[in-house]
């Protein structure tokens, strides 16, 4: 047995250093696009990102989302959107992007010093 023992944690089996059979070339790519799934867990709440899946079209994406993300009544409404249509902010810009709000403490109600006697405010 010539497996080289490297750090091997539960669920992380090291690659064999000996020649492993190479994978079939990736020719079977049918290109089912990736969809992001959003679920409303109950009436009155926002749709929340639940995960993603591949599907041929929107109808199939919704059906599959029902099967994988709502098997225990986790939702009453599903949105799906093709992942490629999502635009995201850049994490590298996070400081520049969000910091200006840090010094605007007057946007928070606790900034205002009012007498304790005041009610309903």
């Amino acid at each position, binding site marked *: 047995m010539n497996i080289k023992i490297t750090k*091997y944690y539960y669920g*992380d089996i090291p690659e064999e250093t000996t020649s492993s059979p190479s*994978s079939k070339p990736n020719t079977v*790519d049918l290109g089912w696009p990736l969809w992001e799934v959003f679920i409303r867990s109950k009436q009155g709440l926002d749709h929340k990102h639940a995960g993603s899946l*591949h599907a041929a079209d929107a109808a199939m994406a919704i059906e599959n989302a029902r099967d*994988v993300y709502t098997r225990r009544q986790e939702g009453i409404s599903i949105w799906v959107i093709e992942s490629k249509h999502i635009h995201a902010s850049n*994490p590298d810009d996070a400081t520049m992007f969000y910091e200006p709000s840090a010094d605007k403490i007057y946007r928070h109600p606790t900034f205002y010093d009012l007498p304790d006697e005041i009610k309903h405010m």
Partner: protein
Amino acid sequence: MFLQEAEKTFQEKIDSEIKIEPKDWMPEAFRKTNLRQISQHAHSEIVGMLPEGNWISRAPSLKRKAILIAKVQDEAGHGLYLYSAAETLGMSREQMVADLNSGKAKYSSIFNYPTLTWADMGAVGWLVDGAAILNQVMLCRTSYGPYARAMVRICKEESFHQRQGFEILLILSKGSKAQREMCQDAINRWWWPSLMMFGPKDSESTNSDQSIKWKIKRKTNDELRQQFVDMIAEQIKLLGMTLPDKDLKWNDKTKHYDFGEINWDEFWNVVKGNGPCNKDRLIARNKAHDEGAWVREAAIAFAEKRKSNINTKAA
């Protein structure tokens, strides 16, 4: 220079328990380790459907059949959550499936053991899912965001898996002599392979504890294994059965159960691909994939047709 600086900031984030998200900078080795671990985990869920799927048509009652179908269906869902998490690290689903089917990718060795009797459905749920749950509960706090979120969802679904397994054994343990023997036999066959699920002993590993430092893992193999032994050694008392280990006994000093030596030759042998069912599992996966090809093609054709219908109507 940039790399050193970036690695330092990265480690500081990890140390202050800030999750790493797909678009964040991460060391290449962090990406690789997570990709390998998450995809192996996904493969394990998918291959894990086979030993239990084996008993769906022969479950002893309609109730047990419905439960077993629900459990196997959950495992398919777990596979999907995990493949999605792995995809965020930049490998396509098709590639992962191809790697599994070609035998290049690994999955948990436990699924290379056969399920010979109905009692095995009990032992698998109780011991195999039980062992997996300990690992997965820990992974709910893993440092890569998509992996942690997948684990939270999975853990919510797992507890029924272990409970239904224990219940199967509990009922058998109160049954006829033949049923009690079947129960004990399943425990005997699954106990050691379940202990092997936790991987080699900590002392066998030579690399640095990078996975712990990066908080991909928070407990070592031996810590998780001990936790498992302590849990099962108590639970089995309720079954009135025994674990097949003459060295198993409570240690008053350590406040843990001592247990016997694992057969590491068997362990490495199964990892290497020579377990009782390694070949069958890959044949089954390839067969399913090949026979499903027309379904995948038809779905694309149907989607295109539906799209063109909408377009003509709009025109």
